[in-house]
């Protein structure tokens, strides 16, 4: 290393980065430091992972249940979906959405609005934005609602164990989640207005939308490909989990007089979740790691911004690659530690 004239050190992190990033959640331009560039990349990675995880879970659970359906058509449709998306490389899917499918979208000036406010164009997806006054009070009210729900759940469980009386936790929780934010609107001075994207002419033939939030096509195609791909694995996890609960359990539950809903809620789901959750978390982890493929379509995630642009500029290959790897590593190790703890907690306690 020495004879190649390479020095080692992390001092470059505080230097001025002098490059710009297309899309970032926090303010960033050339005058910010490389460390801030790292944060921008990390936040973008987290953003696309969270979006991907939410959609993958929704699609995966729906498809997994469809896969268990006794309706031949639904079952086969789900099977075709799973086999198809699972057997095509993720990178190919990302390229497909980005270079082929989203490129077929209309130009901003030709776009028909969806539901009046949403504009899906070749330059990205423009959605209305909320402009908040006193956003922090609103967020506090939601947090307060969640915390009180947790306490109510604990209280309800205790009550059921001691006195055998069930509390309608679900309706109380939903009520709390609606009422507390509503109160913040009425008394906390929270105010929200909607800003709709408006078409604006930049030049003779160049149009764009102004106002609202712009989701770049990179983000859309990446999130789409990640969630469609990971959903197939989650669907299989869900299917395996529900099938893993033996028939005798359901029959036994039915025979002691539980209603079908209760059977599902009290007998099948707890056991199925025990099988479903560990592999599903693994899939979430895979999704997060796979989001690094963003570099291929220039979505500014951690790998592209930090291990790409910053590395090119500083030439600090060892430091940057090791920081990037450490970030992913600590992410996955912390999740796997959590999973081990969780596994131990829910494992069947055998004598």
């Amino acid at each position: 290393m020495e004879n190649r004239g390479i020095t080692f050190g992390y001092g470059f992190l505080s230097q001025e980065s002098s490059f710009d990033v297309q899309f970032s959640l926090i303010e960033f331009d050339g005058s910010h430091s490389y460390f801030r560039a790292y944060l921008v990349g990390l936040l973008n990675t987290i953003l696309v992972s969270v979006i991907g995880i939410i959609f993958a879970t929704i699609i995966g659970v729906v498809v997994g249940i469809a896969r268990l359906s006794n309706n031949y058509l639904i079952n086969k449709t789900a099977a075709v979906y799973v086999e198809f998306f699972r057997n095509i490389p993720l990178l190919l899917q990302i390229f497909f959405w980005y270079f082929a499918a989203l490129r077929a979208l209309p130009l901003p000036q030709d776009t028909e609005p969806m539901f009046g406010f949403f504009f899906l164009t070749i330059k990205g997806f423009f959605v209305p934005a909320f402009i908040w006054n006193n956003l922090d009070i609103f967020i506090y009210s939601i947090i307060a609602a969640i915390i009180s729900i947790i306490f109510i759940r604990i209280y309800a469980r205790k009550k059921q164990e001691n006195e055998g009386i069930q509390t309608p936790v679900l309706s109380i929780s939903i009520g709390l989640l609606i009422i507390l934010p509503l109160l913040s609107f009425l008394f906390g001075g929270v105010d929200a207005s909607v800003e709709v994207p408006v078409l604006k002419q930049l030049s003779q033939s160049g149009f764009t939308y102004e106002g609202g939030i712009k989701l770049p096509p990179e983000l859309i195609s990446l999130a789409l490909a990640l969630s469609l791909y990971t959903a197939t694995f989650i669907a299989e996890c869900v299917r395996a989990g529900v099938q893993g609960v033996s028939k005798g359990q359901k029959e036994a539950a039915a025979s002691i007089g539980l209603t079908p809903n209760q059977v599902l809620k009290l007998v099948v789901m707890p056991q199925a979740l025990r099988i479903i959750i560990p592999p599903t978390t693994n899939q979430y982890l895979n999704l997060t790691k796979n989001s690094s493929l963003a570099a291929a379509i220039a979505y500014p995630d951690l790998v592209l911004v930090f291990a790409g642009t910053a590395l090119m500029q500083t030439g600090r290959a060892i430091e940057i690659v090791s920081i990037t790897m450490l970030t992913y590593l600590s992410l996955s190790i912390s999740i796997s530690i959590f999973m081990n703890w969780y596994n131990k907690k829910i494992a069947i306690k055998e004598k």
Partner: protein
Amino acid sequence: MNKLNFLQPDKNNLNTYLYTGVILVALSIFLVFLNSFFEKDLISFLPGTLSFFLPLILGFIGLHLIRIEYSGLKFLDSVNKNINTNNFNAFLSLLIVFAVIKSLPPILSWFILDANIAGDSKDVCTGTGACWTYIKIWFNRFMYGMYPNAEQWRINLSFIALAFLGTIGFFATEKFKKYLTLYYVVVYPVIAFFFIFFFISGGPIFFDFSYGIIAAVISIIIGFFIPSKFKMYYFIIVPITLYILLKYVFFYEELIELGKLEALEWVETGAWGGLSLTFIVSFFCLIFCFPIGLFLSLGRRSDFPIIKYFSIGMIEFWRGVPLITVLFMSSVMFPMFLPEDMFIDKLVRVIIAISLFEAAYVAEVIRGGLQALPRGQYDAAKSLGMGYWKMHILVILPQALKLVIPGIANTFLALVKDTPLIFVVGLLEIVGMLNLAKTNPEWLGFAMEGYVFASVLFFIICYAMSKYSYNLEQKYKTER
């Protein structure tokens, strides 16, 4: 005549219900069919929303009418049981049928009816459908990358030969069956390596290869006359001595002349690409990652703390990072740790990186199998006086590996699907070639065709692999 109750179809008026229902369903399907294939709307006189939903409503009522349990008609019963158990199911079934009918015409027209395949330039693609001409023209590039056209027979020949050698297991007689594992684990990879290294890449190294072949052939021929007691030593010592003698003492000049005649043109790995590179990379990674993963999984269960924690560290590290950063590391960071004059080929680095990466996953899968075996198996093997290796090779691993065939197959599938990532280091396998072809100024705007083509190829490969693993699983399934 019995009273008809349309809310509750029953068996008494089976025919009435059946005919009304079938006619309604057929009508609804016919409406959608006309609409989607011939763009004719028979019910356009109705108000907008109603004409849109009418087929759905008609079909729904129809399916409701034919939902008669134990009707005695076999076909009707199976329809009811499979797609029409209740209202919700009927609704979903209808939706799926309509969606298929609706989406068929555009798909058909894009893929076949309006597509072009004739001709050899972009100008022939005038239709609204796919331009398969693009695939046709670029086919060689997609398959072989930048490999020179005149030399592509070498790739074909090697792959055909390797495929043939790979099927030897099916033809082996009983006598040779026991050597098959050895063949597939050791001999076959070595042969494959020689093929790819000397045949596909070619070049001056081929000279050395000719010495090696001669040494091997001579030593095998003499080997038949050696008593089996000494055979092992013989096959280790003699070929190497022969090789050295041949190269440096006997036929130095003559063989170089011989080699020159047969020398193949050197094709550097940067020029390899396309689907053949996908195969090469996945093949070698498959071969290497399995034994490494096996040893890591054994190491993780070892009693020696050093081996144990080393294995855990290796596994958790590779599993924790994305493959793309591993490839980054292999391309930008790794060369810095090498001595100045040392150079490792890009392809080799990639293969090492992917193998180590996938080995960690294989290790975890195999560990699952090892943990699933009851302790009694270990104890029984030990009580027979078996040592560590004997116990694992003869008792534990055959059972454990059998259990984890699906898991290993999944890892291998993931490996094949990960190969496109090698674009990071500048190697262009099929997806990389597609991206290159897409930016060619003469062929702009055909990204869709390329990706569909590659998707179909990958789907066939991966689907075949998963079906094969399923067969293996069934074949080796033992009742426990």
